[in-house]
């Protein structure tokens, strides 16, 4: 599904990714762990098509070169990034945003756009699965939401858009244990043989709930170690410094 070869990324003359290789197949859950500044969020940003990065190397998504697609086309093709810091957008109603988003994706896929009634029915259902109070949906997008509410809103968007590849950028940060469980349940219930996850995290604790097939350690812009779920447990004990 995703094949990254020798990816380099530079922003503001800072060389951040320095030859990263990663292959993700449908049905797999990959976790990327690593210390601060190792390039985890840069990888997420580059995959989402954020402008400002100079890149080298090759990223293929379902066989097509990703660089030719704009951010919105990537989203329409099934790449989803749950933001580390979801943006507060004053004046934009959450429901209207969600409906516009869903219909943009449906339209791009050649599916029929949902009318307001069918949309509201769908979003109610998805929101209740994540324990999101309906009144949040009529508020301005993320404005005044707590950290946990913002992250739950990201997972809600994921479940609504039904992406093929979901990238969760430190979705666990700022979550209390109950919210963490809800987010993890949200991911686990969505996981199937056709979609894949790339989970970026500092800590093992999210991986206690979402069991990864692979754990990669990112350090200084490269993946320096890959292992199975046990690697995370080991890292929790020994830290990153012993790997370098």
């Amino acid at each position, binding site marked *: 599904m995703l094949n990254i070869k020798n990816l380099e990324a530079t922003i503001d003359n800072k060389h951040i990714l320095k030859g990263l290789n990663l292959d993700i197949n449908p049905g797999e859950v990959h976790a990327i762990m690593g210390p601060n500044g190792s390039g985890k969020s840069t990888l997420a940003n580059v995959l*989402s*098509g*954020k*402008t400002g990065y100079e890149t080298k190397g090759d990223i293929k998504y379902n066989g097509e070169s990703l660089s030719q697609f*704009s*951010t*919105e086309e*990537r*989203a*329409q093709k099934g790449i*989803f*990034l749950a*933001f580390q810091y*979801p*943006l507060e*957008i*004053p*004046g*934009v109603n959450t429901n*209207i*945003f969600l409906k*516009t*988003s869903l219909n*943009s*994706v449906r339209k*791009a896929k050649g599916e029929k756009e949902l009318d307001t009634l069918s949309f509201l029915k769908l979003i109610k259902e998805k929101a209740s699965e994540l324990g999101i109070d309906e009144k949040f949906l009529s508020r*301005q997008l993320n404005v005044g939401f707590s950290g946990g509410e913002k992250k739950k809103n990201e997972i809600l*968007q994921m479940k609504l*858009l039904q992406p093929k590849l979901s990238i969760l950028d430190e979705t666990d940060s700022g979550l209390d244990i109950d919210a963490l469980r809800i987010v993890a349940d949200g991911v686990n219930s969505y996981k199937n043989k056709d979609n894949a996850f790339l989970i970026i995290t500092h800590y093992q604790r999210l991986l206690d709930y979402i069991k990864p097939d692979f754990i990669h350690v990112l350090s200084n812009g490269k993946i320096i170690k890959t292992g199975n779920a046990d690697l995370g447990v080991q890292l929790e004990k020994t830290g990153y410094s012993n790997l370098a």
Partner: protein
Amino acid sequence: MKQYYDFKIEKIKDLSSDEIKLRKKNLDLFYQTGFPNKKDEDWKFSDLNSILIKNFNNITNNDCLPKEKNLKLIEEFEHNFISLYNGRLMSSDFAHEEKNKILIENFNYKKEKNLDKKNSLNFLNHALASGGFFLEISENYELKKPLVIYNNFSNSQKETIVNYKNLIIVNENSKLNLINYIDNSSKENFMANTIENIKMKKNSSLKNVLINNSGCNGYFYKYLKSDLDKNSNLENYLISSGFKFNKIDIEINLNEKHSSSSVFSALNLINNEHQEIKTRINHNATHCRSYQKIKNVLHNESKGVYQGKIFVKNIAQKTDAYQLSRALILDDAAEFDAKPELEIYADDVKCSHGSTSGSIDLDSIHYLKSRGIPEKEAFQMLINGFLGEILEQLSEGKLKNFLIEKLERQINGH
């Protein structure tokens, strides 16, 4: 200098010799300075003279009216209406109201005293004005439905100026929602120069909305003067994008205690549109409140101006005055000028002002795009959110939905 205008009082019908004399005097006063230019402090950001020189060959006044076309009524909400055509009162309909509670008639020029002398456009108005209306709402009467004033201008009005005056009196304990609606898509250049006076009596309340349906090549100036008595409330909403030029010159006199007023504005300016909102809020009594929130989005080579002055008289203790201007500038060639002014002679007051201008937040755009929303739509959503906030405090209902929909149309292209 190119003489690009030529005005004749003889074109106005049915004037007495005294009126002609007074009008001639005012026309002379106008000719002494011509249209306002940037040398005038009040017009330093909106040099109307040079704008008109570039766009007009010969502006004239014309009192003849072509036949009125069929009036296209708003269908989205039930309302009463007054229809003006080139400033002339054509018809009115108050089917939703008790008849004897509302007086509507032609503006009476013979009764007019105390002429405003703010600028040469006022002189021009005194010299050439005809048409306009006088509206009075009886005491203790709350209109059941909003009142729409249809301001139509004939599409054949090439290079002409329309001048008229309106007077609105809202008597004690009365309440009115007024929508000034401009529906014109003329591609011919024309001007409208209006003086409107609003008298708010004790405990009265007025929402005054200015909105247009489509873009047109109109050049508008409106001097809107309001006098507020005890405990009265006036809210102004300016949602009038789509003209060539528009300057709204607002003077609000809070003359008695506990009166309050606000000016809210949401403008989305494209191409070379130029709009100015100028306010002067005079706090002349204690315990009065004024609130101004001005929002502009500027595209292309458009220009927006906000000159907002709060004046607090020495006796006006316990004044609460606030003004905020926020602008989003989306193109390098666009310009926004803000000049907030506070002039305070009382010591126990709460006054604050702020002004910011900046570009749109690209991280927010990225966030929306990452959810599959195309870039153009993402910009529109953010602009909608930015400007739409202005309408938030209106009570829910068909009128609010109508205004939101019009604003969205202004943002997404007429």
